[in-house]
């Protein structure tokens, strides 16, 4: 394991010396220094190769972009830089991705975040890492904990990141398996909080996707591409006992995307999302019953009056009071629901539509009280019998239209 590092160190040292000597040659123009430089170069290379490298000097994976180098022959394997992009299978390197949703501890649709533990499995083929199968009785080499960390610095790995992870992960453990045929399997368990976009358009019949965005940060799409095959789909699933309070977990959906990089290049990405459906029963009691009940307030103001020969019996002031009380009730309800379900406070959804309907119905109720009951506008222009018939008509038409509209809003939300 240390041999490639020694060689790399020697190579780096050699390059450094050559650069320095080129500089000196340029400055002095003394060609006689060439022979001395060659000797110094050989000495430095041998010294570096003879020493065992400290771990701290190892090149951290991802600290710089791995160079693209042609794969050497088997006899030159020991001299290869294994941290460079594997070219043995052609480009791009197909990195197969699977994501297992092990646990979701919280989903806050108001904040647009969820917290959970996931196992991300990356698999790719690096022919430079092939070795005789008989050397591993288990069928693969496995590295865990510090060994895995060390090994990851010695071989090429795609620099993959969770781009919608909100903060540093609470916990992250890694395991690496290398198979005799050169397949590499990197398993990473991450616990963290992820941000997700919330679309509350169909609230409370909405389905959300708990997305984990995985993006290749270093390699372009021409160098490494994230793909999902059947085995990876089978792996990408929620745990059998996974449950989320107030939500029903569904299938895992995987979508590929590309992210613009520099110089017209793109980077490969995947969104692995667990579809979850809201349990609407929990919302009916707290949101829909108050909303539909408040719809009755302006209707009561219309129903509470009566007419005789077109003359109204109840004082308009009392009925206006009902409307004003209803307005305050709806405003209070609006504040309450917006505080509890911030995701539905803005945008177009069933709840905001029902609030809109409440305000419109209150407006209609107020118009009836003022124009009909207080100022008798229809009677002034068309006579008392028209006013009488208009009152009779409004008594059933306004409730029918209000209920019909509310029902339509709910059906549209549920569709």
């Amino acid at each position, binding site marked *: 394991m240390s041999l490639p590092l020694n060689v790399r160190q020697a190579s780096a040292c050699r390059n450094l010396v050559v650069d320095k000597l080129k500089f000196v040659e340029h400055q002095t123009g003394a060609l006689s220094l060439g022979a001395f430089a060659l000797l110094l170069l050989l000495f430095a290379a041998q010294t570096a190769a003879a020493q065992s490298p400290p771990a701290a000097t190892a090149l951290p994976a991802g600290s710089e972009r791995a160079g693209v180098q042609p794969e050497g022959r088997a006899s030159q394997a020991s001299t290869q830089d294994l941290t460079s992009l594997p070219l043995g*299978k*052609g480009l791009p390197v197909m990195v197969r991705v699977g994501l297992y949703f092990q646990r979701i501890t919280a989903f806050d649709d108001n904040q647009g975040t969820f917290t959970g533990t996931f196992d991300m499995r990356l698999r790719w083929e690096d022919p430079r890492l092939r070795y005789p199968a008989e050397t591993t009785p288990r069928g693969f080499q496995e590295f865990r904990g510090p060994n895995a960390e060390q090994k990851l610095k010695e071989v090429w790995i795609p620099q993959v990141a969770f781009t919608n992870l909100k903060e540093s992960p609470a916990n992250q453990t890694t395991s690496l398996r290398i198979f005799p045929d050169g397949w590499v399997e990197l398993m990473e368990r991450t616990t963290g909080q992820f941000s997700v976009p919330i679309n509350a358009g169909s609230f409370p019949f909405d389905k959300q996707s708990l997305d984990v965005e995985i993006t290749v940060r270093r390699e372009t799409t021409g160098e490494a591409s994230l*793909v*999902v*095959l*059947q085995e990876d*789909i*089978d792996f990408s699933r929620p745990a059998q006992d996974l449950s989320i309070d107030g939500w029903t977990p*569904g*299938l895992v959906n995987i*979508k*590929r995307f590309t992210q613009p990089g520099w110089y017209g290049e793109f980077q490969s990405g995947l969104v692995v999302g667990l579809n979850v*459906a809201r349990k609407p029963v929990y919302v009916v009691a707290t949101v829909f019953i108050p909303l539909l009940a408040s719809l009755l307030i302006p209707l009561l103001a219309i129903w509470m009056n009566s007419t005789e*020969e077109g003359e109204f019996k109840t004082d308009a002031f009392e009925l206006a009071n009902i409307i004003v009380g209803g307005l305050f009730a709806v405003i209070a309800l609006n504040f309450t629901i917006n505080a509890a379900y911030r995701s539905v406070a803005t945008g177009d959804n069933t709840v905001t539509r029902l609030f809109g309907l409440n305000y419109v119905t209150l407006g209609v109720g107020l118009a009836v009280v003022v124009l009909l009951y207080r100022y008798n506008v229809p009677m002034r222009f*068309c*006579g*008392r*019998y*028209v*006013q*009488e*018939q*208009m009152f*009779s*008509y409004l008594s059933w*038409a306004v409730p*029918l*239209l209000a209920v*019909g*509209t509310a029902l*339509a809003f709910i*059906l*549209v939300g549920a*569709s």
Partner: protein
Amino acid sequence: MTFRRSAPLVLISAIALVVAAASIISSLLFTRMISSVEAKQFSLMHSIVAFNLRGAEDRAQARAAMIADLPRARALFAARDRAGLLAEYSKMFADQKDKYGVDQAQFHSLPPTSFLRLNDPENFGDDLSKFRPIVVAVNRDQTPRKGFAIARSGPAIVGVVPMFDPQEKHIGSFEFGIAFDDLLDNLKNAYNLEMAVFIDEKSLHEFAKGVDPAIYSDQNRVGKFIRFHSTSSAVFQSLVSDKDLNTTENTQYVREALGVTYGIVLVPLRNGAGDVVGMVAATSDFSASRSSRTRAFVWQALIALFSIVLLAGVTLIIIRGILLRPLEVITSRFATLSTENESAEIPEPDMLCDELKGLARQYENLRSARKREAE
């Protein structure tokens, strides 16, 4: 029959009928529009599948033609040097398999017999004339062909070209076969379509001796077909049944699975003899169009309700408020006038319509005359 009840009833019924008819027609038009969008989506899916199958056939045939034209290949095959061919082309095949999804490569000698399978060098010498009609046709006509075939190592899209020795004498043929796995996975990645290939189980048992026996599991069995490869087994388990596969033409339908509405297209795979021995299925999420259809229906129903209620209101208020109710009051005043000495005036006679004003005036004249008589 009273005019008070029957007239508004007739008028409101007529309004309701007209509005309902208009809404239904509008809804049908919208449904047709959505269906047209779905039809285009189906057509696109058919095109994607057909184009990619044809592309795979072309690639297989182009590769086969290149190898078949190489002087070294012609010389080695003419000399029936199996070991030489294997040494020459095994690395090429390994690279093609690793990088480009090529699954099979085979030299066929005459009469159609397997001379060398680069993908399975140990198995050769078997007669191909019974189960490889495309190989038979190529060697009979000495013309390249491409298509679907079930070979020993499984179903593939193949390109077969005749081979000639250096003296241009026909000596057999060469083929490349591209596996479905790679093709379907690439299609899913490119178009986000879920893909599957179903192969006739009997043909698989008969010809594809080299496939993994685990493929014949109950989970993969759909009627007489075996789901040979799919990009999402959970989706296809619910979407494709044996009845659906019982077709010989391009088919499309819409079905719901796992809470999502999918559009499915089935494209039959035919062997060289034209028999359907497999089916490629492609599915796409149709939830958006279906949801739009439901939403449009609900909104149209609501608009219809508003139209009917508002027009009914106008009808009721005009017939009853302007005509019937004042007439009822005038009639009752006349009745009082004829039976009792005391009679009341008609309230607000100026607000009555012109036709009733005359009647009200007559009532007032009569009432004034009665009053004068009484005095």
